[in-house]
Every structure is written in structure tokens, then in C-alpha cells.
């Protein structure tokens, strides 16, 4: 199964949830500031990559975890992925999760400032504050999502 976390931008809430799901961030312990800084650097570098699937890792059930920036087109992308996947007989199941409502307004604001290349230092502070505030919430949401996912079906040859 491919699990795709979709945010307005790929690198804020979507990447955070994907990283929690893939085990890059451990939900029970808060990451070091070095990790958060690295995450912020990802936001600076790839925040404007809309529509690209960013591979984050595998979870314990060997589901592939991706993050993607959908701008405001999540429903259109979800339907296009699902239908084109069926048309082209992509046998792997796709599971889209809309993160844009969970991450709040701040990532959009920070993303806008970063895209314009202004107030980077302010954005860094805001990002740390946002990360602190949302980490536990996203951890819970990822656990909830994981519970909702079905375990992968085993092929007959196994």
C-alpha cells in the first residue's frame, strides 16, 4: 500500500506526519532541535514542490509512505490518482490523507514568506513554535491513521 500524506505544501504537516508514520520521528520522544532545524531546511528547499510525491520511508507493515503538496487541489488529485490507478491497473492500494486542515494556517503563512525569501529568521522561530505545538497532536493523528489502515494482503506464493 502507498500511504500519501497530502498538505497544502508537502514539507510542513504532511512531511511531519509521514516522518512520524515511517518512524523517522519517534512519537513518544520529542526530536532534538537539530532534527527540527533539518526539517525547517527541507521546508526552505522543497516547500514549493507541488504535486511531487516525496518518498519518506516504509512503515512496519512495509507500506510506502509519501508526502505531497497538493495546494488546494486535494480532492481533484485524490480522484485522479484513484481513477488513473484503476485504469492503469496499478494493483497497489492508495491511501490519501488530507493534512491541510490539521496543520493550521501557520504553514501557509511561513511557506509564503519562505517562497518570497523574506523574514527567514522569523519563519524559523515560527516553525519551532508550530512544531512544538503540533507534535503531540500529529503523533496522535498518525496513531489513529495507522490503526485505520488495513494490514497488507499476503500473496498466495508466500
Amino acid at each position: 500500500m502507498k500511504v500519501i500524506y497530502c498538505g497544502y505544501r508537502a514539507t510542513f504537516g504532511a512531511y511531519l506526519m509521514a516522518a512520524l508514520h515511517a518512524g523517522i520521528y519517534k512519537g513518544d520522544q520529542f526530536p532534538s532541535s537539530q532534527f527540527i532545524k533539518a526539517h525547517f531546511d527541507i521546508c526552505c528547499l522543497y516547500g514549493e514542490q507541488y504535486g511531487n510525491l516525496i518518498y519518506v520511508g516504509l512503515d512496519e507493515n512495509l507500506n510506502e509512505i509519501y508526502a505531497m503538496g497538493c495546494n488546494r487541489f486535494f480532492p481533484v488529485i485524490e480522484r485522479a490518482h484513484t481513477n488513473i490507478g484503476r485504469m492503469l491497473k496499478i494493483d497497489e492500494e492508495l491511501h490519501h490523507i488530507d493534512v491541510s486542515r490539521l496543520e493550521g494556517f501557520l504553514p501557509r503563512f511561513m511557506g509564503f514568506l519562505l517562497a518570497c525569501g523574506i523574514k527567514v529568521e522569523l519563519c524559523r522561530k515560527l516553525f519551532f513554535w508550530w512544531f512544538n505545538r503540533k507534535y503531540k497532536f500529529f503523533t496522535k493523528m498518525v496513531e489513529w491513521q495507522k490503526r485505520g489502515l488495513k494490514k497488507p494482503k499476503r500473496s498466495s506464493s508466500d
Partner: protein
Amino acid sequence: MGILFYHCYGGAHTSVTCASIHLNYLPHDRIPETYEFKAIPFYDKMENSKLGTPLYMGRDDLGWDIYALGLKDGKSVVIPAIKSLLNVSGIYNRDVLFVSALVQVNPLTAIGGFTSRKLGLPFIGRPMTIWGIRKTYPLLVDLVTRVKEALMQDRDRLLT
């Protein structure tokens, strides 16, 4: 051979018209009458809640499956998202083509489409879209002709 998507904003008018020209449901040498547009399958039918769902229109003489697709104004996001999925699924991108049907859309078509699909007044909007498309019909025929020529050249290149 592959899959070709004609895409536009709502997936109800220009993309469906282009796909119909491609499949010879509509003539190349003259501007069709109103009843001919109304007879096209899926013309002015796509609902807003289904945008992103491809509509299968038929298979052309070269073996390409032709679809109409509505992407709102998000083609710069949705098309990379589709290509990205194909990429990670190991599907050859050259077999999937996207052609924008939004070539010089007449404002009447846009207003008619909004009236019909968004406001739910097809008896006002549909004739406006047909009127608008008839005005730009030669441009749509030209687009489809160029697409077909490109596909033909590609096939010749692959066969030789």
C-alpha cells in the same frame, strides 16, 4: 498504444469537444450544429464533485485511448501529481499524454460553463457554451489535428 487526456477546467465542454473531434464524433471540415454538440456523450455532464475523474471517450484509429479530464485551475499541480504516481509505480510516462484543451477559450464558454455546472442552470448555460465553442471551433480542430500528427509521427518513429 497509450492514453491521451484532453484536459480543461471543468471537464465538461472544451476537453469533451476536443476528444470528440479526435474520435471523429464531430466534423473537421465544418462547424457543427447545436444538436450535434448535444448528442456528444458527456457534453456538459461533469459534476463539480467529480472533477479529477477521467471520462473515457473512445479509442482512436492509432489505438490511443482518449479521455476528457477536468482539473480546475490546478493543472500545474495535478498533472505532476499524476506523473509522479506513474513514476513511482513504474509506468512509462511516454504512454500517458496530457493535452490542454484550453486554447483561447471564448468567455461565453466560461460563463456558460459556470452557469450550467456551478449554478445548476443548464438551460441557460449549455446554449452559451455551445455558442462559445462554435466560435473557437476551428482552433480546437487545429489543436486536435496537430496532436494527431504528433501521434502519427511518433508511431512512425517507433515503427521504423
